[in-house]
Structure formats: structure tokens, C-alpha cells
């Protein structure tokens, strides 16, 4: 069983089809609605999102638990700090 099946998100955010900077703008908005420790799953198709989400995670302190791909999609699990 891989990580993607183990981690369970509290909220799912679909940023499919959106380009920079909207995936991180929407991620930031979504994470503000969460309680500390809750998990956001974000799906994007923007090829710039893996490095951008990693940078966003480092800058905001919200931990990036997993960054992976599923076909053409990029999948991120982020834990609210």
C-alpha cells in the first residue's frame, strides 16, 4: 500500500486547469479554513505546482506530507500547522 492510500484528507481542493498563481492562492485560502493538524488534499495540473507548493509549504510552515503524481495530475497532501 502506498502513502497516497494511507493519508486521509479532511478537505479536497481541485485546482485542475488553473495556472500560476491560482493553485497556491486557492491553497492558502483553503488552509485558512482548516484547524491545526487537519489535512488538505490539493490536485493540480499546472506543471509549476510541485516546486511552488514545496516553496509555499516552506514559507508558511504548513507541512507538505506528500507530493506525487497520478497520470497527468499532481497531488499534494498538506497539513495545517
Amino acid at each position, binding site marked *: 500500500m502506498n502513502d497516497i492510500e494511507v493519508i486521509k484528507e479532511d478537505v479536497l481542493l481541485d485546482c485542475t486547469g*488553473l*495556472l*500560476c*498563481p491560482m493553485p*497556491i*492562492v486557492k*491553497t492558502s485560502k483553503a488552509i485558512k479554513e482548516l484547524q491545526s493538524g487537519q489535512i488538505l488534499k490539493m490536485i493540480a*495540473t499546472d506543471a509549476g505546482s510541485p516546486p*511552488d507548493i514545496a516553496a509555499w509549504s516552506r*514559507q508558511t510552515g504548513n507541512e507538505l506530507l506528500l507530493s506525487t503524481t497520478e497520470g497527468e495530475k499532481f497531488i499534494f497532501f498538506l497539513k495545517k500547522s
Partner: protein
Amino acid sequence: MSKSDPNAPKRLALISSKGTLDWAYPPFILASAAGAMGWEVGIFFTFYGLTLLKPELTAAVSPLGNPAMPMKMPFGPEGFQNINWPMPNLLMANVPGFEGLATTLMKQTFHNKGVATIEELRDACIELDVRLIGCQMTMDVFGFKREDFIPQAEIGGAATFLEYAADADVQLFI
């Protein structure tokens, strides 16, 4: 020299000096991204950038004197859409409405690719508490009044920007 307050969040200070569609994107993209990362952000709108504070955004783009601008068609088969159309200045200067056409094509191409509009990015900036500062001197020169701009705009001068930028981690002139 260190920042006045070492515990303050990171800060981005931008100068937006151009009001065309292509140049309207970078300040709003960087500002909304920085805001999303928890940074403090201020944009100082001066000269042609001031028009980006108007309620109705009419930013257009001109390929005239913009030789590196790729002209793409936002419709038709993929191979057709990927063609960079050469646009000689002589042609552009003589065709009425060419800038309107170029603007429409760029907006449609951006929309098709999933790029947010300038309006959406500006709204995101406002929601993220980005400071939007209009340059008083340019307002006087161009005859703009406070009420010509969105209510979220502040008005200030060079000293206002410099004081803000002095404590910024990143400062960019766009």
C-alpha cells in the same frame, strides 16, 4: 542592515509602472503569490501602472514595438494554435483596430490556458490584504482623482513607498 522588527513576516515591495495587459500580470501574480505565502505585500502604482487601480480594467496589449511578443490564435487545431504569427510593424501600424484584435487574442489564449484574469488576480490581492498605493504625483500629472480608483487604494508618494520598501525583503520595479 536588519529589519526594524525581526519577528515581522517577510515583505514584498513592488513598483508597477506599466498599464498594458502583458505588464499588468507580473505585479498582481507576484503580489497574490506572496500574499498566499503569508508575506506582507505593497504595490506602488506609478505612471501608466496607475490605470490598474481603476474599477473597470481596460488594460490592452500592443504588439507594436514589442517584437518578442508571440501572436497566437486561440482557436483551431493545436498545430495552428502553436504557430507564432509574424507581425511586421508596418502592417500593425496601418490596420485600424489591430491592438484591439491583439488584446482579444491574448485574453482568449490566456483564458484557454487557465490563466486568471487581471480582475481575478487583483481581487485575490485585495482579499490577501495587499496594500495598493497610488502615486499622488502621477495622479496630479494625469488628472486622476481619488474617486477614479477602487476604494481599497491608498494614496502616497515616493517617501511612502521608500519607507515601506526599506523594511522589505524583496523589492522589484516592474
